[in-house]
């Protein structure tokens, strides 16, 4: 009961944040609502017992990635988004498609009988166990992802560095 209440509470925050992300017209608000979603998702993880995942969710997602977004928004000084009529397809085909698909999935899931309940803190995401799994069974994927992110860093540096012509005078700005 207690568990269900908590779940619904944080779930409501999640959904509210997600919807807010959609309705807000200013990217910074969307970003903040996304942060809210992530934080409450961390709470959901805690309910499921994945405490380490929750912590990393907060630190990496909310604390690092979203900061990157906010920095970008601040850097580009992005204002309210303009309501351009870019594509009819997206509105007339895409949105109904998404809604239909979502409703179908939800309907099927809720009408399945074999969905047993999960007790609070069902599976303790103990850092030690996760580390053991990560460094034994998933060692290769781990290394591969590390290489991936290294490449991503280099690509980001190359892409974001200003074009050579504009670099000369802007040296001192640091």
């Amino acid at each position: 009961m207690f568990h269900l209440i908590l779940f619904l509470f944080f779930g409501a925050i999640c959904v509210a944040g997600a919807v807010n992300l959609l309705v807000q017209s200013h990217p910074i608000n969307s970003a903040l609502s996304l942060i809210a979603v992530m934080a409450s998702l961390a709470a959901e993880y805690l309910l499921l017992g994945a405490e380490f995942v929750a912590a990393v969710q907060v630190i990496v997602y909310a604390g690092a990635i979203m900061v990157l977004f906010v920095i970008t928004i601040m850097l580009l000084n992005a204002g309210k988004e303009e309501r351009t009529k870019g594509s009819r397809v997206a509105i007339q085909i895409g949105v109904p498609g998404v809604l239909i698909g979502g409703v179908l999935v939800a309907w099927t899931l809720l009408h399945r009988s074999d969905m047993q309940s999960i007790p609070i803190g069902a599976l303790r995401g103990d850092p030690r166990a996760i580390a053991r799994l990560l460094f034994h069974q998933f060692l290769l994927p781990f290394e591969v992802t590390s290489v991936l992110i290294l490449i991503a860093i280099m690509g980001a540096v190359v892409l974001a560095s200003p074009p050579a012509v504009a670099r000369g005078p802007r040296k001192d700005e640091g």
Partner: protein
Amino acid sequence: MVPLSYYLVLSGILFACGVLGFLIKRNIITIFMSIELMLNGVNLSFVAFAAHWHALSGQVFVFFVMVVAAAEAAVGLAIIIAVYRTRETLNVDRVNLLKL
């Protein structure tokens, strides 16, 4: 005691919201955030299934997803900056040269 399906429905809702954001938002950065939202929805289902099957690997996968999300954010934001530098806009409807 919460049924697994609730968690899955929640993650589904998040994912659908992400896709909707992709569809209806014009701002590249917001669209990017919608992608992150989708990834989070997927993560939630990962963790829920991990708890359901008592398999920790589900949680491990979340970490991989996070790493990929981080890499994607880095590159994507860099691309956004580059695009903004050349096109002076963040509106995807105005960045539509790749056609016909």
